[in-house]
């Protein structure tokens, strides 16, 4: 039975349709795997096994009746950022620790409408603010990968650490995730999984707990590029409940997987060659370039001159939006309310200080500062102008290339409790150096596992596409995946 959990989403869907096994059998296999692994990994913060069994039963009925939908019977994990009706949703924050949404997010509703089965809610950094899953109210996730030089527990990355860990450890067929600065792609790279953030506006933000609204975008973490295409097809939709949702029709994403990239122009940005980046990251990038050349792509040197300003720009824009979005947590209508206050102001201040964790408070305060009188123009408006420069860099680059290849992260997974990163927030923020530009510009970006470093840890490459061109992004990702032949799995210690 445990073999069922090792299937890809595609092969599981095929097997279910061919009646080689039932959704109930598959769901039970996942339940067994989660019960065994979760105490060590902490990927799930809530399991919904009764609901999963019920949904699997309905899927089996439909499969038998020949009424199978696109994801019929496929057990999935859901990042705790997505509101699920009647199922606790906390965004892994203490301020929402008992919140039970009376409504469903559009992304998850799309999955259930396509017949998927919910196994539970996945761990993440609090309000998706973090790169190591250590800011979660429910404790960090442990990466199943370990360095061959040490037994120390490693981070699966963040903020979608639970999603990446659950997919990598075969605790679900695929998972939903979200990406504001790299929160899908960095954890995917750290765990040897595939993660794609589509074009801003492709997936509805309705019912997805807000961090930074102009940057937040949902996407899947999966075992393969083909699985990513399947998940994306279901998760994305035009939604009148999200005013930034795009009305453009979705292409058949799967049709791009396996498509030839002969003659495609692949841009290699000079500015992504950073000082102090391990040689192994550069070597992997060179290898990726060679793989695409071998597949018939034309390699073009490009310049994205404002790249180095992307992270500082992001750390104004994102906290500014976060400070505004998180103003709703006032202890009045929902969420934590302090027991210790008498006045209204006391209630606000103590409820928020008790409910939010340290990183969230830090970002709220940065956001408040850069939006405050006297600093608004110098910081916030300035950052919005730099953001346009960064977006224009890409527009100019598309004159000479069709897609861009970069490393996904500046390092492999690092240790949980890394004191250097804990002491200096900027060190932690640098994790997103290669991923954050696509959030600022609203472009699709995908991380694909491409190799192991000398310590035996996975490394990823990133493919960046034009707006609305997830198709070409997936096509290039599939070529990399095939060339890399990444089949490594961590040895099971949990």
């Amino acid at each position: 039975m445990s073999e069922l959990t090792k299937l890809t989403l595609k092969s599981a869907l095929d097997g279910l349709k061919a009646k080689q096994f039932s959704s109930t059998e598959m769901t039970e296999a996942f339940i067994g795997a989660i019960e065994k692994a979760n105490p060590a990994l902490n990927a799930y913060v809530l399991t919904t096994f009764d609901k999963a069994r019920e949904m699997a039963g309905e899927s089996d009925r439909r499969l038998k009746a020949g009424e199978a939908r696109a994801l019929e019977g496929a057990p999935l994990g859901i990042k705790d950022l997505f509101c699920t009706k009647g199922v606790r949703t906390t965004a892994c924050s203490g301020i929402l620790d008992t919140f039970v949404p009376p409504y469903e997010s559009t992304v998850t509703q799309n999955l259930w409408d396509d017949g998927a089965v919910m196994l539970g809610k996945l761990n993440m950094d609090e309000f998706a603010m973090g790169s190591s899953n250590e800011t979660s109210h429910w404790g960090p996730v442990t990466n199943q990968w370990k360095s061959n030089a040490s037994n120390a527990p490693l981070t699966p990355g963040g903020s979608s650490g639970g999603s990446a860990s659950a997919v990598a450890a075969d605790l679900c067929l695929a998972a939903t995730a979200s990406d504001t600065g790299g929160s899908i792609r960095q954890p995917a790279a750290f765990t040897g999984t595939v993660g794609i953030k589509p074009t801003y506006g492709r997936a509805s933000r309705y019912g997805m707990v807000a961090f930074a609204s102009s940057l937040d975008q949902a996407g899947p973490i999966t075992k393969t590029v083909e699985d990513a295409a399947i998940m994306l097809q279901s998760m994305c939709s035009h939604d009148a409940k999200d005013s930034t949702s795009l009305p453009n029709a979705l292409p058949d994403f799967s049709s791009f997987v396996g498509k030839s990239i002969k003659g495609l122009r692949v841009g290699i940005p000079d500015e992504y060659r950073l000082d102090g980046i391990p040689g192994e990251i550069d070597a992997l990038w060179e290898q990726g370039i060679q793989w695409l050349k071998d597949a018939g792509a034309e390699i073009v040197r490009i310049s994205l001159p404002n790249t180095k300003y992307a992270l500082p720009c992001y750390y104004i824009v994102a906290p500014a939006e976060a400070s505004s979005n998180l103003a709703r947590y006032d202890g009045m209508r929902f969420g934590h309310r302090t027991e210790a206050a008498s006045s209204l102001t006391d209630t606000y201040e103590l409820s928020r200080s008790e409910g939010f964790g340290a990183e969230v408070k830090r970002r709220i305060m940065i956001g408040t500062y850069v939006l405050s009188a006297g600093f608004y123009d110098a910081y916030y408006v300035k950052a919005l102008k730099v953001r346009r420069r960064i977006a224009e860099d890409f527009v100019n680059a598309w004159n000479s290339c069709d897609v861009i290849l970069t490393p996904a992260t500046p390092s492999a997974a690092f240790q949980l409790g890394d004191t250097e990163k804990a002491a200096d927030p900027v060190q932690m923020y640098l994790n997103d150096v290669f991923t954050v530009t696509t959030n600022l510009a609203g472009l699709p970006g995908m991380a694909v596992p491409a190799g192991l470093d000398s310590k035996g840890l996975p490394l990823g490459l990133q493919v960046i596409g034009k707006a609305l061109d997830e198709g070409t992004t997936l096509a290039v990702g599939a070529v990399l995946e095939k060339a890399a032949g990444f089949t490594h799995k961590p040895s099971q210690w949990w």
Partner: protein
Amino acid sequence: MAIDVATVRKVASLSRLRESDERLESLAGQLNGILGWIEQLNEVDVSDVQPMTSCVEMTQPLRDDVVTDGGKVADVVSNAPKSLDGFFIVPKVVE
């Protein structure tokens, strides 16, 4: 533009957050570190650039001004820390 403890206290108050004096001091150090790093944005010439508030070029969609949802009092107060008969119970607002 160094931030001192008094400024952090003011920002905390604007943010409706309460922090101990000890925390305020360490936050001042951290915020200075972050804002010092952000200062590099001053190197970018943005004299002729319009601020970018959205990465999607689209006109704001409008819908008919009609009621599409409502009548869900029980749902609305279902997560309230305190409620009674469909009302939120809040601390005294007016003395």
